[in-house]
């Protein structure tokens, strides 16, 4: 229980900006074109290679799944993360590179399959739950502050890519905003109160 409380505390801190240390990158430096140089592994990708792209896409698709409404996959969350890692989040590139290897190792240890993307949906969910509890198996996690570290960043980045402004490469066709009924930027028109019309007055 104690563990749970401190974890909530951490997530609260994330919500209020405490993880700037994790989330912020190089001040002014590392432009998109620089990052797109030699490292670009696949056409259309700025940072991820094909396997990393597919793995991160599958992970985000479990965080915001697709039902009758679009999910992380349709919103292009992996595209958002790819651009962010090539630019402002460049300090977190290594974490993702190791993290993709980590989830593959965990897939092997937990389900005897070589790659996370080969797992059945319920197996993927079980593996992410293990990451959330920092219990995902695999040697590679020792090179990170733990599997929950990747999980926490992945959660934050998935939210950003699904609900952030489309100009950052996610929330494509405004599917994230449409899901929750958020109209996006409202200047210069704004809104006119009152904002609550109660049905039971």
């Amino acid at each position, binding site marked *: 229980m104690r563990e749970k409380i401190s974890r909530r505390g951490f997530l609260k801190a994330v919500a209020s900006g405490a993880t700037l240390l994790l989330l912020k990158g*190089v001040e002014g430096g590392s432009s998109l074109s620089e990052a797109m140089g030699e490292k670009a592994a696949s056409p259309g990708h700025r940072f991820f290679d094909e396997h990393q792209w597919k793995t991160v896409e599958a992970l985000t698709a479990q965080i915001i799944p697709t039902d009758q409404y679009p999910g992380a996959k349709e919103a292009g969350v992996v595209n958002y993360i790819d651009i962010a890692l090539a630019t402002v989040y460049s300090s977190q590139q290594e974490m993702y590179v190791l993290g993709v290897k980590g989830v593959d190792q965990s897939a092997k240890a937990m389900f005897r399959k070589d790659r996370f993307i080969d797992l059945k949906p319920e197996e993927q969910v079980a593996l992410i739950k293990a990451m959330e509890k920092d219990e995902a198996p695999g040697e590679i996690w020792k090179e990170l502050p733990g599997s929950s570290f990747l999980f926490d960043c992945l959660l934050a980045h998935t939210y950003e890519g699904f609900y952030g402004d489309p100009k950052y490469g996610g929330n494509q066709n405004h599917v994230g905003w449409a899901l929750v009924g958020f109209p996006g930027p409202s200047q210069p028109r704004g809104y006119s109160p009152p904002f*609550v019309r109660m049905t039971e007055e």
Partner: protein
Amino acid sequence: MGNKKVDICIIGTGAAGGVMCKELSQAGFEVVALEVGPFRTPADFENDELGQAVRFYFLPDPQYYPNTLRTDPKEKAEPGFHVARNMGVGGSTLTYCALSWRYHESDFKVKSTDGTVAGASIEDWPFTYDELEPFYEKAEYEIGVSGLAGANPFDPPRKSPYPMPPLLPIGAGQMCIKGAKKSGLHPFPSPMAINTIWYDGRPPCVYCGFCGWYACMRAARGSTLNNVIPKALATGKCEIRPNCMVREIAVDEQGRAKAAIYLDPEGKEQAQEAKLFLLCGGAVESARLLLMSKSGKFPQGLANSSGLVGKNMMYHIQAQAEGVFPWPVNAFKGPFSTVCVHDFYETDIKRGFIRGGTIEGSTYRGPITFQWRRPPDEPLWGQRHKDFSREYFSHWMALLLHGEDLPQESSIIDLDPEVKDKYRLPVARITHKYHENDYKAANYIGARAREIMEAAGAIKTWGGELEELHGQSAHHMGTCRMGNDPSKSVLDRWCRAHDVPNLFVPDASCFVTSAGANPALTIQAISFRTADYIIKSAKQLDL
């Protein structure tokens, strides 16, 4: 090193520094203001949650400007993002929520009113509310505050109405009015530095929803960037130098402040001499600068013969009660707060703690930050999480509490022995632990906030406990407290350093206690008062 000596050098251009620039340049003094951040304009701002409220473009990047924090003086302090302060002309008023309070009469005499509490270093302020009242009024008119005089039965006495009528209640404000009235409380329109009519050449607010944490795109909010600083620049007497980091206030043989030594935008060291120096960098940075300014005359840091520079640091206690309603509340529309409750502000010893705080009707959340706002038993990912977002994003609201954090001599800003910022200067190390009274007050008032939402018809409420944010609330106060006794305080009643006759610190560093409400207007009233003193005493100050 070719800077011409000026009358007055101001360090920092936020709530205090902006006011000082205007008042002193309009009085005819030659002023140079050094600001660590850039000079932006409203054209640089956007309705962009990811950029402004998640990546925090305006806050210091902790990779380059970290602070370190520990709760126990025996521990090693960990670097990270521990101080929410905006860097740039306008300072934290650039993105503040704009709640503009007059502190209550009792706030200036907590020791006389409530006595002392074990572990806390409570004192009375060296002046009363009555003495500050004319400057509160001046601040309300110069900054541009909207509100309704007489609507808050707990308000201290005032001579004039607010210069503008109050904002209309947003969704969360409507819920707060309904719930608070049903609970026998006294909701009233929030006093906000947000225009509701054309005022001072700036347009009214359009309730766009991108408010606290966001810089206002239309200058409807009374950031010092929009109201006082343009007037200072118009005098032709005030020069603002952005992207300049002051690392030391150098002194002469008599122990008077002589020059601000700073790193210019190219990183080159420069000196700016002046007859008078005003530190307006906020309670963390002003104390840090004094501590970095060690010299033969001041081996413990400038103005620190009492040893109290950096001590008695306070944050406000903060708790957020959240709830969801059967109908849309649309918390993403409108400014940060439009309705407040002050029924739990003054001491009621039956509650088991002293002092109290303000319940603020609503805190804005865009769809990204909303994803973290969940009852403790709800998951943070997967189908259920998505369903919750879809159903409740527009049906959610929060009531935020800001309350009094009791001063403790053990709450300290000092220089970190190891961690340096991008200028290779030692960063401010924070040692801060909440007092038992803080937990009791936050949890009690947080529970009342949940009751307000329940009375208003909430389906479910949660939260309302003290959030141990430490410096992540932008309210930092009290590192150079005022007082009449030079052995027990750093500044005199005019915010002048007891030790250094030509050095003033009119920002929140001077606060003796923190009061139970946002500090901005009080910082500004104190700045207007100090400016008035400097202008009237120009001769004695050799200006």
